[in-house]
């Protein structure tokens, strides 16, 4: 088939046999789920055996792009890393920006699938359909920046994009990430540990191939329309302050997790705010490929104890995790921690959270000083926070335990620790307090396939807390939105289903979610995505069919988890979420009836309420009957 938007090819590299295969895109899958993480989910559920060890050679990891990746779609700089997570043992996908995703397409592929395990460390060099496996023995043990520099020199292509793991990935830290373009992370869930387990240090890509456009005149017209819509985007100050702009906003609204979620406001928030970062440390703004927003930070600390060379970030999550969550008001130490995490290749959310968890255990007397290598784990001790980053990545002392993630650490420390550990399905909670921000967000933490997540597949608070219509009323979004603190009986199941589908659309098209919120003429709505998709690819998909593809993608990911044994019993929240907040504007708020919200959510998708598993009928409606052979179904 002749493809527009898509390239039409899949690269499959088996590191055990060193076999390199190029396959055609499967038209049936394109028709069902369009691409990117949806397409990758379909491949993984078909190709992986259930119950495999995520760090064994049986696991596969996919670098997935979508039809809109690397195009003029204003948010198309993304790729999704898709795999079975070593942290959660569930479905996992991690999005990253920069230029790696677009370069995969320019190199001639839509997907790169990595299988097997290399005996010796290697890296891949892919350009214009040529694939080479290079020795990486000399790179093993080196950090992200050095490895990137050495590889770019060796392949003699300064414009190439390199995705690489650092020491954390080599050491198979369960939340190690893959860093591309030096500072953009496919952060969550431990994709870096999988590359480490496969002895794959890096992938370098470059290319000069066309992305063809089906209807150029129409496409340019639609893109101009999208640019105009985004000029009215409601978060305009995100350009100026980046995601750290949220520090002050969330603090004011009582949803900035502080002292390991014990509080929801931080007295020193101003000290670690996006405004302060911009004023004192920002060198410039940086955009991902093709992004008209440019929220990326590029900052440095030029002198002092935490002197840090120019580096991407820190983003909001990093600042909140290493800052408010640990009661740390020293922004320079946060910038330093961000730099270290990037260079070790480690998820800043999980790293910050596991450090705060350790501090909480220490304060509660669950751990003795000897057990923590005689570190002074007092809240806000920035020296120790930075020390722990080193220890986790290198698996030294207590770091070796923390490197296994919060759930495993808590299990080792006993029931008292397990009671206060904050994770869902093994994934640490990110820096949005659902009790203060949005009860829908609480629901999302419970049900998201990769565990507690504020972004997969969408920012759940967009409807009840954000008041953003985002073009969804046309598809039945209840309007006006319910109160953000309301739980059951307010159509939150129906609303959240549409929020999910909107997010899933950008995920299967290969886009960043950040342009998706606003009024219906202020952001990239499903309607606008539909127009872009049609003019770019020539695929005859109505907006309804686009939503249907998104629902299929979400359902396949759900079924991936069902097959791994996940069901309603795993759609849980940590105990603390059911206790009232102690401070701030949302004081006394808590999750009161998760069960009722779960009922509404399963019902909205047509899933069985008792088991939380999709029913045969709902799979049939989505043309996903093939999944019924793969999962235990409720008739």
């Amino acid at each position: 088939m002749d493809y527009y938007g898509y390239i039409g090819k899949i690269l499959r590299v088996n590191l055990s046999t060193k076999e390199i295969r190029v396959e055609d895109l499967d038209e049936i899958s394109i028709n069902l789920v369009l691409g990117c993480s949806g397409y990758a989910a379909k491949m993984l559920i078909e190709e992986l055996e259930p119950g495999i060890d995520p760090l064994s050679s049986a696991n596969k990891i996919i670098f997935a792009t979508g039809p809109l990746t690397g195009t003029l779609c204003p948010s198309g700089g993304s790729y999704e890393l898709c795999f079975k997570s070593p942290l959660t043992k569930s479905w996992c996908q991690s999005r990253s920006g920069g230029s790696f995703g677009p370069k995969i397409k320019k190199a001639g592929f839509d997907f790169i699938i990595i299988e097997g395990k290399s005996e010796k460390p290697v890296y891949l060099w892919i350009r214009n359909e040529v694939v080479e496996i290079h020795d990486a023995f000399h790179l093993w043990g080196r950090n992200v920046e050095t490895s990137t520099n050495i590889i770019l020199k060796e392949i003699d292509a300064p414009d190439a994009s390199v995705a690489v793991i650092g020491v954390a990935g080599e050491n198979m830290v369960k939340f190690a990430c893959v860093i591309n373009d030096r500072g953009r992370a496919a952060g969550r869930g431990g994709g870096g540990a999988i590359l480490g387990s496969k002895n794959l240090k890096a992938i370098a890509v470059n290319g000069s191939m066309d992305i063809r456009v089906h209807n150029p005149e129409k496409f340019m017209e639609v893109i101009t329309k999208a640019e105009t819509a985004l000029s009215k985007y409601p978060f305009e100050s995100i350009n100026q302050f980046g995601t750290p702009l949220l520090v002050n906003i969330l603090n004011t609204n009582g949803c900035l997790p502080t002292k390991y979620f014990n509080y929801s406001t931080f007295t020193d928030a101003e000290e670690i705010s996006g405004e302060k970062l911009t004023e004192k440390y920002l060198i410039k703004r940086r955009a991902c490929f093709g992004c008209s927003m440019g929220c990326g930070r590029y900052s440095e600390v030029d002198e002092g104890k935490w002197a840090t060379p120019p580096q991407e970030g820190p983003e909001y999550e990093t600042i909140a995790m290493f800052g408010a969550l640990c009661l740390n008001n020293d922004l320079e130490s946060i910038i330093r921690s961000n730099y270290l995490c990037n260079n070790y290749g480690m998820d800043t959310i999980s790293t910050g959270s596991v450090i705060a968890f350790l501090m909480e255990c220490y304060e509660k007397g669950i751990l003795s000083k000897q057990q923590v290598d005689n570190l002074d784990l007092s809240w806000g001790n920035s020296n120790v926070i930075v020390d722990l980053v080193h220890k986790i990545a290198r698996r030294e002392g207590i770091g070796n335990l923390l490197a296994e993630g919060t759930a495993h650490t808590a299990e080792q420390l006993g029931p008292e620790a397990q009671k206060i550990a904050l994770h869902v399905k093994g994934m640490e909670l990110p820096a949005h307090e659902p009790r203060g921000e949005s009860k829908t967000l609480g629901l999302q933490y419970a049900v998201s396939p990769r565990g507690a997540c504020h972004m997969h597949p969408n920012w759940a608070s967009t409807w009840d807390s954000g008041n953003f219509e985002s073009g969804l009323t046309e598809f039945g979004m209840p309007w006006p939105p319910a109160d953000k603190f309301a739980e059951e009986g307010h159509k939150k199941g129906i609303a959240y289903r549409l929020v999910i589908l909107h997010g899933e659309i950008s995920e299967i098209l290969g886009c960043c979610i950040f342009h998706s919120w606003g009024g219906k003429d202020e952001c990239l709505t499903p309607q606008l995505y539909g127009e872009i998709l049609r003019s770019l690819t020539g695929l005859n998909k109505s907006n309804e069919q686009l939503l249907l593809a998104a629902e299929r993608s979400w359902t396949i990911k759900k079924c991936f988890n069902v097959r791994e044994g996940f069901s309603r019993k795993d759609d849980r929240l940590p105990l603390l979420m059911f206790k009232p907040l102690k401070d701030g504007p949302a004081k006394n708020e808590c999750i009161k009836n998760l069960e009722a919200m779960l009922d509404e959510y399963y019902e909205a998708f047509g899933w069985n309420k008792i088991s939380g598993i999709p029913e045969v009928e709902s799979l049939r409606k989505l043309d996903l009957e093939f999944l019924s052979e793969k999962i235990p179904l409720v008739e």
Partner: protein
Amino acid sequence: MRKTLVVVATNCTGCRRCEMWCSMKHKKVINTERSAIHVLRREPSIDTPLVCLQCGNCLGACPKDAIQRNKKTGAIEIKLDLCTGCGFCLTACPYGLITMDKVDKHAIKCDLCGGDPECVKHCKEDAILYLDLERAASYRREEAAKFQQKKVRDTY
């Protein structure tokens, strides 16, 4: 009055939308490698658009007289029906801003889109401007002065 392109590199975020618009406009495909404008990202901290200044150095280099000045816009344009892809103009350009299109086998060079450059229209950051000649010249003088100043600062 005629206009010319001016780059404000400090405004550039490195999104490369200008390159994509350029290839879309001229080649009807998305390909930053087939664009007449070039954005370079180099570490640390450099993102900069590079544009043809229409200096005319390439005018005499073409053995087929395929390179001609557009009297209206001032742009030096390559007449594609005459261009054989010999590459002499690439040799002549002191800035490396003429490239070879490997698909169509002819040279690629900025033609100012006939006086309405796409890159300028779609740059949200105002990193590429299309200014009246006198304003552009004055701007360039200021930039040159700032550059000298920076050199002095870096030295001492």
